[in-house]
């Protein structure tokens, strides 16, 4: 039907926009990392004593003597074929550094989302049902305080209590992940980073869920549904939630990129060997290929999450037809 094709078109547009964003990230990252000339890079790597000939040789070896767009084209082409190049800071293949990290970060982020989203929605619904009550107001104040804490403060707090004082969990995730072999030991390394991320996400999303459901619960159609004698369950989950869902998912989609950026910090706090930690390391050493590769992978991850949200909105929102027809 027309409704379906309109949805397909919207989804197609969002997919194209996602790819465009990815392209943009690659240009920005590559462009910015090219601001430093070969001489700077060589000096940073070999010290200030090296001669001009050595610099020339170095820049030839890594193709730094070619114009930016040529290098960019080659890099992008190779990247698309799975070759991320060699770092000229560490001389290690970028893919051997980045890919295992990426896998761990993916697991960490998605587990955190999987835990945080349902909890947030349930808390939000719980609050919206009793707006203004003591329970609602306490949760509200608590969420303001928790949301105010930077991830690294929460992380350090958890680390101090559970790893240092109680000793239940590893202080240093890297050691646990690299040397411990048993699944249980590996899993333990995920607990604190995941918990920190969850604590960062829940107050935001719960707040948004409370707000949008509260709004929907005050609408005339909710009153009308109640006055048709429909069961409370139907009124809340079918009538109110369906309408609250669109702004909720939208708001979550906008904030999720923000919130998932927290993974970078969280990894750093727990010395968790993911791409976030990799990015911070590469940033402090100006390791171009690593920064670029990680930027692109993280960008891709964020885009996948926002696209998922967009699909959900397209599914929830019948008005997209009207929008597409206009």
């Amino acid at each position, binding site marked *: 039907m027309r409704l379906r094709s309109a949805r397909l078109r919207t989804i197609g547009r969002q997919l194209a926009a996602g790819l465009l964003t990815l392209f943009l990230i690659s240009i920005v990252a590559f462009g910015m990392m090219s601001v430093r000339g070969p001489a700077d890079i060589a000096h940073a790597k070999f010290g200030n004593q090296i001669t001009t000939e050595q610099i020339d040789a170095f820049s030839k070896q890594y193709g730094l003597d070619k114009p930016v767009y040529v290098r960019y084209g080659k890099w992008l082409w190779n990247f698309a074929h799975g070759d991320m190049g060699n770092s000229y800071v560490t001389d290690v293949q970028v893919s051997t550094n980045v890919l295992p990290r990426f896998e761990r970060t993916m697991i960490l982020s998605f587990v955190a989302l999987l835990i945080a989203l349902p909890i947030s929605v349930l808390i939000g619904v719980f609050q919206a049902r009793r707006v203004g009550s003591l329970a609602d107001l306490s949760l509200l104040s608590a969420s303001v305080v928790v949301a105010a804490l930077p991830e690294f403060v929460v992380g350090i707090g958890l680390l101090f209590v559970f790893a240092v004082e109680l000793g239940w969990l590893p202080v240093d995730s890297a050691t646990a992940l690299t040397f411990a072999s048993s699944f249980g030991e590996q899993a333990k390394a995920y607990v604190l980073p995941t918990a920190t991320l969850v604590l960062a996400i829940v107050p935001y999303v719960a707040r948004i869920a409370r707000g949008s459901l509260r709004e929907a619960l005050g609408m005339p*159609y909710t009153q009308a549904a109640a006055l048709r004698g429909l069961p409370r369950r139907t009124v809340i989950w079918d009538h109110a939630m369906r309408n609250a869902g669109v702004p909720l998912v939208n708001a979550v989609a906008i904030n999720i990129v923000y919130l998932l950026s927290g993974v970078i910090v969280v990894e750093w706090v727990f010395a968790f060997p993911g791409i976030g930690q990799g990015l911070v390391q590469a940033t402090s050493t100006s390791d171009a290929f690593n920064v670029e590769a990680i930027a692109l992978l993280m960008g891709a991850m964020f885009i996948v999450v926002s696209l998922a949200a967009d699909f959900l909105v397209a599914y929830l929102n019948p*008005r997209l037809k009207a929008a597409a027809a206009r």
Partner: protein
Amino acid sequence: MTVRGEVVLDVDGLSVGYVRRDGSINTVVDSVSFQLERGTILGLAGESGCGKSTTALAAISYRAPGSRILSGRSQLQGVDLLGLSTQRLRRIWGSKVAYVAQSAALALNPALTVGRQLSQPLAVHLGLHGSASRARQVELLESMGLPDPARALRRYPFQFSGGQQQRVALALALSCKPDVLILDEPTTGLDVTTQARITKLLRGLVTDFGLGCLYVSHDLALLATLADRLAVMYAGEIVEAGAAGAVVSKQRHPYTQALLAAVPSVRRPREVVGIPGRPPTSVVLDACAYAPRCRYVLPACRTGRVAMRDPGDGHAARCIRLEEIEKLPALGSELAAARPGRDVLLEVDGIVCAYTGAEGPAVNGVGFVVHGAERVGIVGESGSGKSTLLRAIAGLHRPQAGSIRLGGIELAPTAVKRPRSVRREIQLVFQNPDSSLNPRHTILDIVARPIRLFRDDVPRARERETVQELLDAVKLPSGLLYRYPAELSGGQRQRVALARAFSAKPSLLLCDEVTSALDVSVQATILELIAELSEQTQTAVVWVSHDLAVVRTIANRALVMRDGEVCEEGETDELFAAARHPYTRELLAAIPELLPA
């Protein structure tokens, strides 16, 4: 089983209040009693805020947020609804009593298909599922006169027009064959012709299904033609109740009398009489609530609460002088006609306006003239292009073609490009005073702005004085100069907007639905004021409105617009007495009328 006259809902002594922020209770409805009988419609009339909606909801035991039902009974076939638990009420709501809210666009869930919304009460109350449910849904939509019901079931509410949405809402309300139907302003905001079709459908449904129906509306004329019995509310009390015809023809309460005198008519040009003052915001228990505004008030009216009294013919009123009031002649007299000059002031020729993305042009080749000091009305239903036309004249919308001349001089399409003198001469007044006055400016700022821009004869030092003179001219009480719009009532705000328009000393006043957001009694005072001021200052008026009766009252000449074109034009007296165009006749026929032809 449908015995006409059998009482299905018996409401007795209902009092309702809202909890104030400090926890105290503000009683807004007091001791309201009425009965709904099978096959009949009880009209509940009254102005904004008098407690109609609160009464309607409380009668079916719905506790609106913050409301408290203070006392009373509401018996549905012997069961007092006010004492039931939510659980039991849920079994009655939707199956025995149905409620239709004012705006179907808001009361239908935008995220669910019509079919899904219809299926829910059928499943919950009647246990209908699957094909049985579907058959009933199709049957329901069919009986509401919706075309292609099977397809309609798969569509979302926003894919229907306003009138169709209200039909869907009615189908939902009647899906489980209720005994009682409560309607709160179900046609407010719809075009008159649509309103006429819906009320006709409703009348049939009430008779066919033997429904006991409560119809809440601010529109006395509509209720007079539709309802069997009529109750008039004022300040939370019913002040007059009886057979609709009796109430309308011989009012026994001064408020009803004043209210009827404020209603304009298309049948004859009559002066509408406003009611000065405002109703109290909560019920008055120690005097007649209407006493401060009543022209027949006696000291005795203030000594205690006035009881509802019925001289024995089933037509009761809450007034100690009801026998005298009934014999008084109706208020209102013939309206003094405008005296248009002979010179042409405004000439509009072949105007075409289109919005990007719209199907056809909103205004399609409209032309007319306005003479000096003339009052020209432009009527039409929503979407007929009347507001766009006015905006084009004001220089707010660039026309695709056509010309506008003021005093023989061609005007630029946008206001900024027009010379200062032209911008001074054309002034605008808008529909909604909430949005036409900047909430962050004081009344002084608002009215002084055009003076600063256009009036070289007023030195800065005299601005404040001039503003005060203007506020006096529009009959606002003194001391409002430094108030903000939010501190004034709707009627007062519209007066400020008028003062702002007249502050520039215009020769042409463009009015867009100026009174449609106001209660009739306030509308009447604004109409009086505009007629008086335009007369005094010899200002021409172009009056755009969807309300033919208002145009009849204010204008000496009128244009009828439809789909962007003028379909009929003439002196109001002739036009309304003997319309030639079939569309004009259809419009006139759809208007509920109080006065006999």
